[in-house]
């Protein structure tokens, strides 16, 4: 299976990634069986798969929440970051979580949240956290959302709605232009209309900032309609990986049947070819 590379150079490389939880106990789960994945500059990858397929584990490995099993490696911009974990990995990774509460600090104001986000990976000093210049930048970034948040810099974030908070979370994840943006079912808790708004904002910001993005979703239609590359996961493996051209020719029903076939059968190989829609 070929993968269409958007940018020229490889930004993220995952090699022999395996992750087992509760090893040696009755609850042992192999969340990731064997993952090999290359992501290129400015790729916008959508990831689908059923519950337990390993999507969130994959994002956590990329974000450095925990390391892969021995033998696996994570490389970002040709730097081996496998053992660069936790807050040290943050310089490369912007992330929006499923819950709006996870990505923002509720008691702080919009302005304070953005100030915190702006200095991603930089050393923080005894300068004032906000100043005129930064406020101007925040207003410009928030204006893109079209939600009027640019006029509410001093509003505490807990007073915002879920959709507003998630949109803010998106700006916070991207404002310092990290190498990779991870979206972990970030519209799953929003109502359909707000979800569409946040999704379109996501698309807009990703294009505007030319962000390399990995978006996990449960929604096949979204997975097909957004981004330039689609990955389907099943039981800790990547079973489908297709580029823009193939994706465009595909309908949701094709994807569903591919998914059903994948879920119902065992495969020797890591990938299957999609028969329908090709």
């Amino acid at each position, binding site marked *: 299976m070929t993968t269409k590379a958007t940018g020229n150079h490889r930004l993220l490389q995952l090699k022999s990634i395996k992750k087992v939880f509760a090893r040696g106990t009755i609850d042992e789960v192999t969340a990731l069986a064997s993952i090999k994945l290359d992501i290129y500059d400015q790729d916008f990858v959508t990831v689908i798969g059923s519950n337990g397929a390993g999507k969130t584990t994959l994002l956590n490995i990329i974000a450095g929440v925990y390391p892969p099993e021995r033998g696996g490696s994570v490389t970002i911009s040709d730097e081996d970051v496998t053992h660069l974990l936790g807050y040290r990995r943050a310089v490369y990774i912007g992330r929006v979580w499923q819950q709006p509460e996870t990505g923002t600090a509720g008691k702080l104001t919009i302005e304070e949240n953005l100030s*915190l986000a702006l200095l991603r990976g*930089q050393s923080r000093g*005894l300068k004032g956290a906000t100043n005129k210049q930064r406020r101007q930048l925040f207003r410009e970034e928030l204006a893109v959302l079209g939600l009027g948040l640019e006029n509410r810099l001093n509003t505490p974030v807990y007073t915002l709605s879920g959709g507003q908070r998630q949109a803010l979370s998106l700006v916070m994840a991207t404002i310092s232009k990290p190498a990779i943006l991870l979206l972990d079912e970030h519209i799953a808790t929003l109502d359909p209309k707000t979800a569409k708004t946040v999704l379109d904002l996501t698309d807009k910001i990703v294009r505007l900032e030319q962000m390399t993005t990995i978006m996990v979703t449960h929604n096949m239609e979204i997975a097909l309609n957004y981004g330039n590359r689609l990955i389907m996961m099943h039981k800790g493996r990547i079973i489908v990986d297709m580029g823009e051209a193939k994706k465009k020719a595909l309908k949701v029903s094709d994807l569903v049947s591919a998914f059903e076939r994948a879920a119902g059968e065992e495969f020797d190989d890591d990938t299957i070819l999609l028969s329908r829609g090709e």
Partner: protein
Amino acid sequence: MDIFGNILGVACYEGLVFGLVTIGVYITFRVLAFPDLSVDGTFPLGGAIAAVLIVAGVNPFLATLAALGGGLVAGLVTGLLNTKLRISALLAGILMMVGLYSINLRIMSGANVPLLREVTSFDVIAELFGLHGGLAVSITLVSVVVTLFFVVLNWFLRTEIGLALRATGDNEEMVRGFGIDTDKTVLLGCSVSNGLVALAGALVAQNQGFSDVGMGIGMIVLGLAAVIIGEGLFHPKGIAPILLACLGGTFVYRLFITIALRLGMAPGDLKLITALLVVMVLAVPYLQKRMRKEWLEPAKRW
């Protein structure tokens, strides 16, 4: 009239000096969401360090600074127990409180150190301004100290580091997600908090003329009660108002205690007064809402 003046004066002095304790407790409990009970040990630690150094002939202001330093270090240790050894915040604080009891006894080589014949910071101020002892001197010195720390904290909490500190207690996972080592912010917060508490201990010891190993008992209760009273009465929004509410809450709390004492209540009853006062501040707004049939939040467990 004189009695009222005196009561207000005492509450003023105590509101300011114990206000440092309240601000310290506010930093750990509210800002960091770190329930730090070391305070009962770091308050007498400050008193012990200052008293022993003054008796040894050290300049009383330097002795007070040393007490602040001792508190900073003790707070750092509490933070290290939590962040580096993964001992829960509550237990780390209790261990420090217990451990510091022995350390304080060692520092003072006994249960207390009298300062009545020594020249304290208050004596120096009295001479400097030509004041003749009493409340005026006490209030003058603690006002200067509290104003200084108010200004410094009001600035610091708005800086990039201060913001990281405030965000840590709000959403630690997110803060780490932006590349901040939250272990460091916790260490910093615990250290500053206990530094302030030890400073208050040093001032109180000098003012009352002795340092005692038991002088820290109930400090955590005082700090929490004052924080709750301050929040309940003033509903502060923003950093400066919050710091002021800590001071205001302590003032109101000590005012009640002073009045209770003047009314002839036994010192043993004061704990009950404290408990009733906190219940009142928390319950009155709730009962008012209930009477107006407003929507009510479920009770918090933490």
